[in-house]
């Protein structure tokens, strides 16, 4: 099971710690020879920022732009295209539930309702008051034969039913 991310409240007050130092820097630079342009490392670099910070903060966008020799505006255009990058802080555990037709046919609405109730999030997109979960309904997760698939952080869980929800969530403190 992958670890969650530390809560990310109040970081405006805290000075931004660069992501691309030490090991992460080395990890990024190891990618450079695999592509003919540095720009091609943009999606991987954004993943690294999100992995380190739990989301992609504006300073992260600026940092990625600098290391890849792009403008922050360019990076913004790209980062807003892809729905998996968080442009706002999220709870310790980010839950994505599929709600597209095949899963809807098999009861994803009930799974979503169960998750919202169990996490205390109240509504989609919201973070639970304890900062533990953020729940999002997402489009097709590509596991339609295993309804309803749920992605919690990096854990892909097949065939979630409302009954399974409490047990699954208990694994994410």
């Amino acid at each position, binding site marked *: 099971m992958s670890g969650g991310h530390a809560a990310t409240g109040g970081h405006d007050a805290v000075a931004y710690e660069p992501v691309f130092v030490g090991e992460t820097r080395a990890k990024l630079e190891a990618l450079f020879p695999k592509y003919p342009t540095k*720009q*091609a490392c943009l999606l991987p670099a954004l993943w690294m920022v999100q992995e380190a910070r739990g989301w992609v903060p504006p300073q992260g966008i600026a940092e990625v732009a600098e290391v890849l020799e792009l403008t922050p505006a360019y990076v913004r255009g790209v980062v807003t295209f892809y729905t998996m990058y968080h442009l706002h802080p999220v709870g310790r555990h980010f839950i994505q539930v599929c709600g597209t*037709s095949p899963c*809807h046919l098999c009861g994803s609405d009930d799974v979503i309702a169960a998750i919202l109730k169990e996490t205390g999030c109240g509504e989609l997109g919201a973070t639970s008051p304890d900062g533990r979960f953020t729940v999002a309904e997402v*489009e097709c997760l*590509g596991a339609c034969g295993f309804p309803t698939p749920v992605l919690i952080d990096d854990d892909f869980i097949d065939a979630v039913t409302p009954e399974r929800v409490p047990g699954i969530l208990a694994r994410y403190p």
Partner: protein
Amino acid sequence: MGYPHPSHQKENVVLSKYFGDVEARSFAGWVKRGGYEALKKALGMTPEAIIEEVKASGLRGRGGAGFPTGLKWSFMPKPSGKPHYLVCNADESEPGTFKDREIMRWTPHQLIEGCAIAAYAIGAERCYIYIRGEFTEPWKIMSAAVQEAYAKGALGESAFGSGKRIDIVLHRGAGAYICGEETAMMNSIEGKRGNPRIKPPFPAQAGLFGMPTTINNVETLSAVPHILSRGGAWYKGLCLSNPKSTGTKLFSVCGHVMRPGNYEITMGFPMKDLIHDLAGGMRPGRRLKAVIPGGSSVPIMTAAEAEAALCDYEGIVEQGSMLGSAGFIVMDDSADLVYEIYRLAKFYAHESCAQCTQCREGTAWTTKILARILRGEGKTSDLDLLLDLSEQMTGRTICVLSDSCAAPIVSGIKKFREEFDAYLSRTKAPVAVVA
């Protein structure tokens, strides 16, 4: 095989033979099951001979378009010092489709082997495998397998000592359906928004990083080692109906069936048997109402059309739809067609890249109209409006996302009009949907 269910006797398992077999994931396990023999054989052949073999097999793209694979490869220019690229499309995001995920989860080396053969055949030193961001498990399994393939000498500077350089790089998507479109995928790898590109130029002329590029689907590439091992003629012989559709294919069946799963059948297999026998048929007391066979981007089939169709490229067209990616969304008589069509339109509106006017505005507008109908606030004229908008959203844009949004709407209204009428006449209870 219809993983997670045991193989059905009517299946013809080639690609899916080792689904569920954890040992097949490792290099050694794959070799033990006959793996990498095809790559070794291919490295001893000329690229032209490989392409001929694939042409002879009749293999067609399994991602949705159904373009002959060998022919596509033959479009690649002769080596000229410029880099050539192979891109493997593992961005499986088409609603109803979940076959590539299983290939990567269970038989990563099958895909790596196929990529390596194809890369060699088209003169590409490097292959990028673009895996959708949500596929965390396939990503981990593929990463480990690629690492192992390098360690065992199947990939790298001299694949199996052949002197041929073959590199595979995994590239992770980040949540965008449209990146499954081949030119959008190239943009995405280049670190851009996943906007589809205008063609021409075609990828074989100027593709990834402006260089000659071939893009193939996971399932297509996974079939290649088997074709090399057993011969194009053998593959071509796997055909129950139209000789233009050959080989076996994974059919993802989901929705209202008793045994959802991936079923590998010979091309031309009756759809009726696929749904009612292999996939276990409907739940007790339920009747088949509709099937969207190509993933969600194709016209909806009525039960009668589905039950009359043969599962291949031509057979499904004959019954008013398309094979697409062969992800079957099956609906029984409990399904609310209007809601499901609305839900699909919402999907396309969410995924539209925003480039073309008709798609950007049309997908959102049609979603709003469908929502209004569901809320019991629809007007009789809404159906004609939907049909007219759909017509203008079809064949007008850079890629087919907009067409894909229109296909279920048009076919839905034409084939299941009474369900729309029930909402419009307020005889059916409204559904609370926002947009």
